[in-house]
Protein backbone atom coordinates (compact mmCIF):
# COMPACT_ATOMS: atom_id res chain seq x y z
CA UNK A 1 0.00 0.00 0.00
CA UNK A 2 1.42 3.35 -0.94
CA UNK A 3 0.48 6.10 1.35
CA UNK A 4 1.25 9.76 1.67
CA UNK A 5 4.03 9.12 4.13
CA UNK A 6 5.68 6.62 1.90
CA UNK A 7 5.76 9.14 -0.89
CA UNK A 8 7.11 11.72 1.47
CA UNK A 9 9.76 9.25 2.52
CA UNK A 10 10.82 8.67 -1.07
CA UNK A 11 11.00 12.36 -1.83
CA UNK A 12 12.41 13.86 1.35
CA UNK A 13 14.41 11.18 3.11
CA UNK A 14 17.66 12.42 1.63
CA UNK A 15 16.81 16.00 2.52
CA UNK A 16 16.02 15.00 6.08
CA UNK A 17 19.30 13.11 6.41
CA UNK A 18 21.19 16.10 5.06
CA UNK A 19 19.34 18.46 7.36
CA UNK A 20 20.22 16.28 10.33
CA UNK A 21 23.76 15.75 9.20
CA UNK A 22 24.30 19.49 9.23
CA UNK A 23 23.34 19.49 12.84
CA UNK A 24 24.94 16.35 14.22
CA UNK A 25 27.85 16.05 11.79
CA UNK A 26 27.73 12.31 11.78
CA UNK A 27 26.36 10.64 8.67
CA UNK A 28 25.37 7.40 10.34
CA UNK A 29 23.73 9.16 13.23
CA UNK A 30 21.89 11.43 10.82
CA UNK A 31 20.47 8.40 9.06
CA UNK A 32 19.43 6.78 12.29
CA UNK A 33 17.68 9.93 13.36
CA UNK A 34 16.03 10.37 9.97
CA UNK A 35 14.62 6.87 10.20
CA UNK A 36 13.44 7.58 13.70
CA UNK A 37 11.68 10.66 12.38
CA UNK A 38 9.76 8.64 9.82
CA UNK A 39 8.96 5.89 12.27
CA UNK A 40 7.45 8.51 14.51
CA UNK A 41 5.55 9.99 11.61
CA UNK A 42 4.09 6.56 10.92
CA UNK A 43 3.05 6.22 14.51
CA UNK A 44 1.58 9.72 14.75
CA UNK A 45 0.21 10.32 11.28
CA UNK A 46 0.63 14.09 11.42
CA UNK A 47 -1.62 16.35 9.42
CA UNK A 48 1.13 18.24 7.64
CA UNK A 49 3.70 15.52 7.41
CA UNK A 50 6.40 17.42 5.54
CA UNK A 51 6.67 20.28 7.99
CA UNK A 52 6.16 17.85 10.86
CA UNK A 53 9.02 15.67 9.74
CA UNK A 54 11.45 18.56 9.75
CA UNK A 55 10.17 19.87 13.04
CA UNK A 56 10.75 16.49 14.64
CA UNK A 57 14.13 16.20 12.98
CA UNK A 58 15.10 19.58 14.43
CA UNK A 59 13.99 18.46 17.87
CA UNK A 60 15.87 15.20 17.66
CA UNK A 61 18.99 17.02 16.56
CA UNK A 62 18.62 19.43 19.44
CA UNK A 63 18.26 16.58 21.92
CA UNK A 64 21.24 14.95 20.35
CA UNK A 65 23.29 18.11 20.70
CA UNK A 66 22.34 18.42 24.33
CA UNK A 67 23.22 14.83 24.99
CA UNK A 68 26.50 15.29 23.21
CA UNK A 69 27.33 18.29 25.32
CA UNK A 70 26.39 16.39 28.42
CA UNK A 71 28.63 13.53 27.56
CA UNK A 72 31.36 15.94 26.53
CA UNK A 73 31.97 13.55 23.72
CA UNK A 74 35.37 14.72 22.52
CA UNK A 75 33.99 17.97 21.40
CA UNK A 76 36.13 20.05 19.21
CA UNK A 77 34.33 23.26 19.58
CA UNK A 78 34.65 25.40 16.59
CA UNK A 79 36.19 28.64 17.60
CA UNK A 80 33.97 31.58 18.29
CA UNK A 81 30.49 30.32 18.13
CA UNK A 82 29.06 33.78 18.57
CA UNK A 83 26.23 32.72 20.79
CA UNK A 84 26.80 30.40 23.67
CA UNK A 85 24.44 27.92 22.09
CA UNK A 86 26.06 24.52 21.94
CA UNK A 87 27.00 23.50 18.48
CA UNK A 88 27.95 19.98 17.86
CA UNK A 89 31.28 20.23 16.27
CA UNK A 90 32.69 17.45 14.19
CA UNK A 91 34.66 14.94 16.12
CA UNK A 92 38.35 15.26 15.53
CA UNK A 93 38.67 12.09 13.53
CA UNK A 94 35.72 12.96 11.36
CA UNK A 95 37.27 16.27 10.57
CA UNK A 96 40.29 14.60 9.10
CA UNK A 97 38.11 12.87 6.57
CA UNK A 98 36.54 16.11 5.52
CA UNK A 99 38.52 18.20 3.22
CA UNK A 100 39.28 21.80 3.84
CA UNK A 101 36.44 23.00 1.69
CA UNK A 102 33.91 21.24 3.81
CA UNK A 103 35.46 22.43 7.05
CA UNK A 104 35.41 26.02 5.91
CA UNK A 105 31.69 25.93 5.18
CA UNK A 106 31.06 24.18 8.45
CA UNK A 107 32.86 26.90 10.26
CA UNK A 108 31.12 29.64 8.33
CA UNK A 109 27.79 28.08 9.17
CA UNK A 110 28.70 27.99 12.83
CA UNK A 111 29.13 31.76 12.88
CA UNK A 112 25.46 32.31 12.11
CA UNK A 113 23.03 32.81 14.93
CA UNK A 114 21.08 29.65 15.69
CA UNK A 115 17.93 31.13 14.24
CA UNK A 116 19.54 32.28 11.01
CA UNK A 117 21.24 28.93 10.68
CA UNK A 118 18.02 27.03 11.32
CA UNK A 119 16.10 28.97 8.73
CA UNK A 120 18.82 28.67 6.16
CA UNK A 121 18.99 24.91 6.67
CA UNK A 122 15.23 24.56 6.53
CA UNK A 123 15.15 26.50 3.30
CA UNK A 124 17.92 24.41 1.89
CA UNK A 125 16.04 21.28 2.91
CA UNK A 126 13.23 22.35 0.64
CA UNK A 127 10.70 23.90 2.97
CA UNK A 128 8.59 26.73 1.67
CA UNK A 129 8.31 30.13 3.32
CA UNK A 130 5.00 29.29 5.00
CA UNK A 131 6.40 25.98 6.22
CA UNK A 132 9.49 27.66 7.63
CA UNK A 133 7.33 30.30 9.25
CA UNK A 134 5.08 27.66 10.76
CA UNK A 135 7.99 25.78 12.21
CA UNK A 136 10.03 28.66 13.55
CA UNK A 137 7.28 30.98 14.66
CA UNK A 138 8.55 33.66 12.34
CA UNK A 139 6.12 35.73 10.30
CA UNK A 140 6.12 34.64 6.67
CA UNK A 141 7.24 38.12 5.72
CA UNK A 142 10.26 37.83 7.99
CA UNK A 143 11.54 34.65 6.40
CA UNK A 144 12.90 36.52 3.39
CA UNK A 145 14.62 39.04 5.64
CA UNK A 146 16.19 36.30 7.71
CA UNK A 147 17.29 34.34 4.66
CA UNK A 148 18.78 37.48 3.11
CA UNK A 149 20.87 38.05 6.24
CA UNK A 150 21.80 34.40 6.68
CA UNK A 151 22.99 34.03 3.11
CA UNK A 152 24.98 37.20 3.24
CA UNK A 153 26.63 36.21 6.52
CA UNK A 154 27.40 32.70 5.43
CA UNK A 155 29.12 33.83 2.28
CA UNK A 156 30.93 36.64 4.09
CA UNK A 157 32.14 34.35 6.84
CA UNK A 158 33.30 31.82 4.32
CA UNK A 159 35.12 34.36 2.25
CA UNK A 160 36.79 35.85 5.30
CA UNK A 161 38.41 32.50 5.98
CA UNK A 162 39.36 31.98 2.36
CA UNK A 163 40.35 35.42 1.18
CA UNK A 164 42.26 34.09 -1.84
CA UNK A 165 39.32 32.40 -3.46
CA UNK A 166 36.80 34.58 -1.78
CA UNK A 167 35.42 36.55 -4.61
CA UNK A 168 35.17 34.25 -7.51
CA UNK A 169 32.14 32.28 -8.19
CA UNK A 170 30.80 29.25 -6.54
CA UNK A 171 32.30 25.84 -6.89
CA UNK A 172 29.53 23.61 -7.73
Amino acid at each position, binding site marked *: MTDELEQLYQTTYTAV*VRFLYRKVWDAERAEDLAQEVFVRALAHRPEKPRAWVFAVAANLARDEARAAVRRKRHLTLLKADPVAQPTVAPAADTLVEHDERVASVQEALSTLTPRDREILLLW*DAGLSYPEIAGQTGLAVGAVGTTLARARRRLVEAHDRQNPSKGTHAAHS
Partner: protein
Amino acid sequence: MRHIPEDELHAYLDQGLSRSQCVEIESHLAACASCQAARDGIAALRDRTTALLARLAPPRSFPTPFETLRRRADIEVSARRRRIHLAAWVASIVAAVAFGWTASHLTNPAGSARVASGAPAPTPAAVSRQAVVKDSRTPTATPAILRPMRTDSTRARTPRRPTRVARRATAETSTVSIPTVMAAPELELSSVEIPPPTGEFELDGMWRTMSWVGAQAEAGEKLPYIDGLPIVQVQVQAGEQGKQPLMVVAQQLSSGEVIRTIEGPAQDVSQLLARRTMSDPVPTVSSVDSSRSSPVSPERIDGSMAMQRGDRMIAITGALPPDSLLAMIRRLNAEMRSK
Protein backbone atom coordinates in the same frame (compact mmCIF):
# COMPACT_ATOMS: atom_id res chain seq x y z
CA MET B 1 9.62 55.07 -7.76
CA ARG B 2 10.27 52.67 -4.86
CA HIS B 3 13.05 50.18 -5.45
CA ILE B 4 12.60 46.61 -4.38
CA PRO B 5 14.08 45.87 -0.98
CA GLU B 6 16.67 43.15 -0.70
CA ASP B 7 14.53 40.78 1.38
CA GLU B 8 11.71 41.02 -1.12
CA LEU B 9 14.04 40.04 -3.90
CA HIS B 10 15.12 37.02 -1.86
CA ALA B 11 11.49 36.11 -1.28
CA TYR B 12 10.74 36.69 -4.95
CA LEU B 13 13.52 34.38 -6.08
CA ASP B 14 12.57 31.86 -3.41
CA GLN B 15 8.99 31.89 -4.66
CA GLY B 16 7.85 32.99 -1.28
CA LEU B 17 5.57 35.74 -2.51
CA SER B 18 2.00 35.81 -3.61
CA ARG B 19 1.16 35.96 -7.27
CA SER B 20 0.15 39.61 -7.10
CA GLN B 21 3.37 40.56 -5.32
CA CYS B 22 5.30 38.80 -8.04
CA VAL B 23 3.47 40.68 -10.75
CA GLU B 24 4.24 43.95 -9.02
CA ILE B 25 7.92 43.11 -8.71
CA GLU B 26 8.20 41.86 -12.25
CA SER B 27 6.70 44.98 -13.69
CA HIS B 28 9.10 47.09 -11.66
CA LEU B 29 12.07 44.97 -12.66
CA ALA B 30 11.22 45.36 -16.31
CA ALA B 31 11.71 49.08 -15.99
CA CYS B 32 14.45 49.39 -13.38
CA ALA B 33 18.03 48.58 -14.25
CA SER B 34 19.36 49.00 -10.71
CA CYS B 35 16.81 46.55 -9.33
CA GLN B 36 17.70 44.15 -12.11
CA ALA B 37 21.31 44.36 -11.02
CA ALA B 38 20.30 43.86 -7.42
CA ARG B 39 18.26 40.84 -8.41
CA ASP B 40 21.17 39.33 -10.31
CA GLY B 41 23.45 39.91 -7.34
CA ILE B 42 21.02 38.23 -5.02
CA ALA B 43 20.51 35.36 -7.42
CA ALA B 44 24.29 34.85 -7.42
CA LEU B 45 24.43 35.03 -3.63
CA ARG B 46 21.62 32.53 -3.44
CA ASP B 47 23.38 30.13 -5.79
CA ARG B 48 26.59 30.60 -3.91
CA THR B 49 24.92 29.71 -0.62
CA THR B 50 23.35 26.65 -2.11
CA ALA B 51 26.69 25.56 -3.53
CA LEU B 52 28.45 26.08 -0.21
CA LEU B 53 25.83 24.15 1.68
CA ALA B 54 25.93 21.39 -0.89
CA ARG B 55 29.40 20.57 0.37
CA LEU B 56 27.88 19.75 3.70
CA ALA B 57 26.18 16.61 2.58
CA PRO B 58 26.64 13.18 4.04
CA PRO B 59 27.76 10.40 1.76
CA ARG B 60 24.91 9.20 -0.32
CA SER B 61 23.26 6.16 1.11
CA PHE B 62 20.44 3.83 0.33
CA PRO B 63 17.38 4.50 2.41
CA THR B 64 16.00 1.67 4.45
CA PRO B 65 12.93 0.15 2.79
CA PHE B 66 9.81 1.91 3.95
CA GLU B 67 8.28 -1.40 4.96
CA THR B 68 10.99 -1.81 7.56
CA LEU B 69 10.10 1.52 9.06
CA ARG B 70 6.45 0.63 8.99
CA ARG B 71 7.15 -2.51 10.98
CA ARG B 72 9.23 -0.54 13.44
CA ALA B 73 6.41 1.93 13.85
CA ASP B 74 3.95 -0.88 14.54
CA ILE B 75 6.24 -2.28 17.17
CA GLU B 76 6.70 1.10 18.72
CA VAL B 77 3.04 1.82 18.87
CA SER B 78 2.35 -1.38 20.73
CA ALA B 79 5.42 -0.89 22.90
CA ARG B 80 4.16 2.54 23.80
CA ARG B 81 0.86 1.11 24.89
CA ARG B 82 2.74 -1.43 26.92
CA ARG B 83 4.89 1.28 28.48
CA ILE B 84 1.83 3.22 29.48
CA HIS B 85 0.62 0.14 31.20
CA LEU B 86 3.93 -0.72 32.81
CA ALA B 87 4.43 2.80 34.01
CA ALA B 88 1.30 2.37 35.99
CA TRP B 89 2.81 -0.36 38.02
CA VAL B 90 6.52 0.03 38.18
CA ALA B 91 7.64 0.78 41.68
CA SER B 92 4.14 0.80 42.97
CA ILE B 93 2.99 -0.81 46.07
CA VAL B 94 -0.47 -2.03 46.24
CA ALA B 95 -2.94 -1.57 48.97
CA ALA B 96 -6.61 -1.81 49.43
CA VAL B 97 -8.94 0.94 50.23
CA ALA B 98 -12.44 0.54 51.33
CA PHE B 99 -13.20 4.25 51.25
CA GLY B 100 -16.85 4.05 51.17
CA TRP B 101 -16.87 1.82 48.22
CA THR B 102 -18.53 -0.92 50.17
CA ALA B 103 -21.26 1.45 51.11
CA SER B 104 -24.59 0.03 52.00
CA HIS B 105 -26.08 0.79 48.65
CA LEU B 106 -24.21 -2.17 47.31
CA THR B 107 -26.10 -4.66 49.34
CA ASN B 108 -29.11 -2.47 49.46
CA PRO B 109 -29.65 -1.01 46.01
CA ALA B 110 -32.12 1.48 47.38
CA GLY B 111 -29.32 2.88 49.43
CA SER B 112 -27.54 4.22 46.41
CA ALA B 113 -29.80 7.19 46.37
CA ARG B 114 -28.81 7.99 49.89
CA VAL B 115 -25.18 7.65 49.09
CA ALA B 116 -25.62 9.75 46.07
CA SER B 117 -27.04 12.48 48.19
CA GLY B 118 -24.21 12.36 50.59
CA ALA B 119 -25.39 9.64 52.87
CA PRO B 120 -23.39 8.48 55.88
CA ALA B 121 -20.78 5.81 56.08
CA PRO B 122 -21.20 2.20 55.14
CA THR B 123 -22.62 -0.08 57.71
CA PRO B 124 -20.48 -2.72 59.35
CA ALA B 125 -22.67 -5.32 57.74
CA ALA B 126 -21.67 -4.14 54.35
CA VAL B 127 -18.06 -4.08 55.24
CA SER B 128 -18.19 -7.54 56.62
CA ARG B 129 -18.45 -8.83 53.14
CA GLN B 130 -15.00 -7.78 52.28
CA ALA B 131 -13.13 -10.86 51.42
CA VAL B 132 -9.75 -12.16 50.62
CA VAL B 133 -9.42 -12.59 46.97
CA LYS B 134 -8.02 -15.79 45.84
CA ASP B 135 -6.93 -16.41 42.36
CA SER B 136 -6.13 -20.03 41.95
CA ARG B 137 -3.75 -19.40 39.12
CA THR B 138 -1.52 -17.02 41.00
CA PRO B 139 -1.76 -18.13 44.57
CA THR B 140 1.48 -16.59 45.77
CA ALA B 141 0.62 -13.22 44.46
CA THR B 142 -2.88 -13.06 45.63
CA PRO B 143 -4.09 -9.70 46.71
CA ALA B 144 -5.19 -10.01 50.27
CA ILE B 145 -7.40 -7.83 52.27
CA LEU B 146 -6.08 -5.43 54.78
CA ARG B 147 -8.72 -3.70 56.65
CA PRO B 148 -8.58 0.03 56.51
CA MET B 149 -6.81 1.53 59.45
CA ARG B 150 -9.69 3.54 60.61
CA THR B 151 -12.01 0.81 61.68
CA ASP B 152 -14.46 0.48 64.43
CA SER B 153 -14.43 -2.42 66.80
CA THR B 154 -17.30 -4.18 65.14
CA ARG B 155 -15.53 -4.28 61.91
CA ALA B 156 -12.27 -5.24 63.50
CA ARG B 157 -13.90 -8.42 64.61
CA THR B 158 -15.55 -9.06 61.33
CA PRO B 159 -14.36 -12.37 60.02
CA ARG B 160 -12.91 -12.28 56.61
CA ARG B 161 -13.78 -15.27 54.59
CA PRO B 162 -11.54 -16.34 51.78
CA THR B 163 -13.60 -16.65 48.72
CA ARG B 164 -13.28 -17.58 45.15
CA VAL B 165 -13.80 -14.86 42.70
CA ALA B 166 -17.18 -15.57 41.38
CA ARG B 167 -18.04 -13.23 38.64
CA ARG B 168 -21.65 -14.07 38.52
CA ALA B 169 -22.08 -14.10 42.25
CA THR B 170 -23.67 -10.73 42.53
CA ALA B 171 -24.82 -9.97 39.09
CA GLU B 172 -27.13 -7.27 40.27
CA THR B 173 -24.33 -5.42 41.98
CA SER B 174 -21.98 -5.61 39.08
CA THR B 175 -22.98 -2.13 38.16
CA VAL B 176 -21.64 -1.03 41.47
CA SER B 177 -20.76 2.56 41.54
CA ILE B 178 -18.05 4.46 43.16
CA PRO B 179 -19.81 7.39 44.70
CA THR B 180 -20.71 9.71 41.95
CA VAL B 181 -21.83 12.40 44.29
CA MET B 182 -18.60 14.26 44.14
CA ALA B 183 -18.30 17.25 41.97
CA ALA B 184 -16.43 16.72 38.75
CA PRO B 185 -12.76 16.89 39.58
CA GLU B 186 -10.43 19.48 38.27
CA LEU B 187 -9.45 17.99 35.00
CA GLU B 188 -5.83 17.90 34.23
CA LEU B 189 -5.63 15.23 31.65
CA SER B 190 -2.40 14.51 30.03
CA SER B 191 -2.26 14.55 26.29
CA VAL B 192 -4.68 11.98 25.18
CA GLU B 193 -3.91 9.59 22.46
CA ILE B 194 -6.60 7.12 21.69
CA PRO B 195 -5.55 4.10 19.77
CA PRO B 196 -8.27 2.48 17.75
CA PRO B 197 -10.76 0.72 19.97
CA THR B 198 -10.47 -2.97 20.21
CA GLY B 199 -12.55 -5.66 21.71
CA GLU B 200 -9.52 -7.63 22.65
CA PHE B 201 -9.25 -8.40 26.30
CA GLU B 202 -5.85 -9.02 27.67
CA LEU B 203 -4.53 -7.72 30.93
CA ASP B 204 -1.34 -6.28 29.73
CA GLY B 205 -2.69 -5.47 26.36
CA MET B 206 -5.16 -2.98 25.15
CA TRP B 207 -5.37 -0.01 27.39
CA ARG B 208 -6.90 3.14 26.19
CA THR B 209 -6.10 6.45 27.64
CA MET B 210 -9.31 8.37 27.63
CA SER B 211 -10.62 11.73 28.44
CA TRP B 212 -12.58 12.03 31.64
CA VAL B 213 -15.79 12.48 29.74
CA GLY B 214 -15.07 9.59 27.41
CA ALA B 215 -14.26 7.31 30.29
CA GLN B 216 -17.41 8.34 32.07
CA ALA B 217 -19.41 7.48 29.02
CA GLU B 218 -17.72 4.10 28.84
CA ALA B 219 -18.22 3.37 32.50
CA GLY B 220 -21.72 4.69 32.64
CA GLU B 221 -20.72 7.64 34.76
CA LYS B 222 -19.08 5.48 37.38
CA LEU B 223 -15.43 6.12 37.73
CA PRO B 224 -13.31 5.44 40.74
CA TYR B 225 -11.51 8.49 41.90
CA ILE B 226 -10.61 10.31 45.01
CA ASP B 227 -12.23 13.62 45.41
CA GLY B 228 -10.00 16.61 45.69
CA LEU B 229 -7.03 15.31 43.77
CA PRO B 230 -6.34 16.36 40.21
CA ILE B 231 -6.78 13.58 37.74
CA VAL B 232 -3.83 13.07 35.49
CA GLN B 233 -4.88 10.08 33.49
CA VAL B 234 -7.77 7.78 32.91
CA GLN B 235 -7.09 4.40 31.42
CA VAL B 236 -9.70 1.96 30.39
CA GLN B 237 -9.58 -1.60 29.31
CA ALA B 238 -12.74 -2.50 27.54
CA GLY B 239 -14.57 -5.45 28.91
CA GLU B 240 -15.81 -8.32 26.91
CA GLN B 241 -19.38 -8.20 25.92
CA GLY B 242 -21.59 -7.59 28.87
CA LYS B 243 -18.66 -7.13 31.12
CA GLN B 244 -17.80 -3.94 32.89
CA PRO B 245 -14.65 -2.25 31.78
CA LEU B 246 -11.57 -2.14 33.91
CA MET B 247 -10.72 1.40 34.93
CA VAL B 248 -7.55 2.93 36.21
CA VAL B 249 -7.69 6.53 37.33
CA ALA B 250 -4.40 8.18 38.09
CA GLN B 251 -4.41 11.17 40.36
CA GLN B 252 -1.66 13.30 41.66
CA LEU B 253 -1.08 14.11 45.27
CA SER B 254 0.11 17.55 46.17
CA SER B 255 3.46 15.97 46.92
CA GLY B 256 3.72 14.99 43.28
CA GLU B 257 3.27 11.26 43.64
CA VAL B 258 0.73 9.63 41.48
CA ILE B 259 -1.71 7.21 42.95
CA ARG B 260 -3.97 4.99 40.95
CA THR B 261 -7.37 3.76 41.76
CA ILE B 262 -8.38 0.59 40.01
CA GLU B 263 -11.88 -0.60 39.74
CA GLY B 264 -13.33 -3.41 37.74
CA PRO B 265 -14.29 -7.05 37.69
CA ALA B 266 -12.63 -8.61 40.73
CA GLN B 267 -10.84 -11.21 38.72
CA ASP B 268 -9.31 -8.67 36.41
CA VAL B 269 -8.28 -6.34 39.18
CA SER B 270 -6.75 -9.13 41.19
CA GLN B 271 -4.90 -10.41 38.16
CA LEU B 272 -3.64 -6.95 37.53
CA LEU B 273 -2.48 -6.66 41.10
CA ALA B 274 -1.03 -10.12 41.10
CA ARG B 275 0.93 -9.42 38.00
CA ARG B 276 2.16 -6.27 39.57
CA THR B 277 3.08 -7.99 42.80
CA MET B 278 5.00 -10.69 41.08
CA SER B 279 7.16 -8.21 39.33
CA ASP B 280 7.62 -6.16 42.43
CA PRO B 281 8.61 -8.33 45.35
CA VAL B 282 9.01 -5.42 47.70
CA PRO B 283 7.14 -6.21 50.87
CA THR B 284 4.04 -4.15 50.87
CA VAL B 285 1.72 -2.71 53.34
CA SER B 286 0.50 -5.93 54.77
CA SER B 287 3.50 -6.16 57.03
CA VAL B 288 3.07 -2.71 58.40
CA ASP B 289 0.09 -3.33 60.53
CA SER B 290 0.13 -7.02 61.12
CA SER B 291 -1.85 -6.82 64.32
CA ARG B 292 -4.83 -5.32 62.62
CA SER B 293 -4.60 -7.49 59.62
CA SER B 294 -3.88 -10.62 61.57
CA PRO B 295 -6.03 -12.99 59.54
CA VAL B 296 -3.77 -12.36 56.59
CA SER B 297 -2.00 -15.61 56.17
CA PRO B 298 1.78 -15.68 56.21
CA GLU B 299 2.23 -16.58 52.57
CA ARG B 300 0.60 -13.33 51.65
CA ILE B 301 2.94 -11.25 53.66
CA ASP B 302 4.48 -9.81 50.53
CA GLY B 303 1.24 -9.88 48.63
CA SER B 304 -0.96 -6.97 48.05
CA MET B 305 -4.28 -5.90 49.29
CA ALA B 306 -7.51 -5.10 47.64
CA MET B 307 -11.08 -4.62 48.51
CA GLN B 308 -13.71 -6.77 47.02
CA ARG B 309 -17.39 -6.43 46.91
CA GLY B 310 -19.31 -9.08 45.12
CA ASP B 311 -17.59 -9.47 41.82
CA ARG B 312 -16.18 -5.99 41.82
CA MET B 313 -12.91 -4.95 43.28
CA ILE B 314 -11.25 -1.68 44.01
CA ALA B 315 -7.64 -1.09 44.85
CA ILE B 316 -5.21 1.73 45.15
CA THR B 317 -1.62 1.70 44.14
CA GLY B 318 0.88 4.37 44.69
CA ALA B 319 4.62 4.80 44.57
CA LEU B 320 4.74 5.77 48.19
CA PRO B 321 6.42 4.33 51.23
CA PRO B 322 4.03 1.86 52.84
CA ASP B 323 3.44 4.05 55.87
CA SER B 324 2.64 7.10 53.76
CA LEU B 325 0.28 5.06 51.69
CA LEU B 326 -1.42 3.75 54.77
CA ALA B 327 -1.69 7.23 56.15
CA MET B 328 -3.17 8.32 52.89
CA ILE B 329 -5.62 5.47 52.89
CA ARG B 330 -6.64 6.36 56.37
CA ARG B 331 -7.22 9.91 55.33
CA LEU B 332 -9.12 8.87 52.22
CA ASN B 333 -11.24 6.50 54.18
CA ALA B 334 -12.13 9.24 56.57
CA GLU B 335 -12.90 11.57 53.71
CA MET B 336 -14.95 9.09 51.81
CA ARG B 337 -16.90 8.10 54.85
CA SER B 338 -17.67 11.62 55.77
CA LYS B 339 -19.29 12.23 52.43
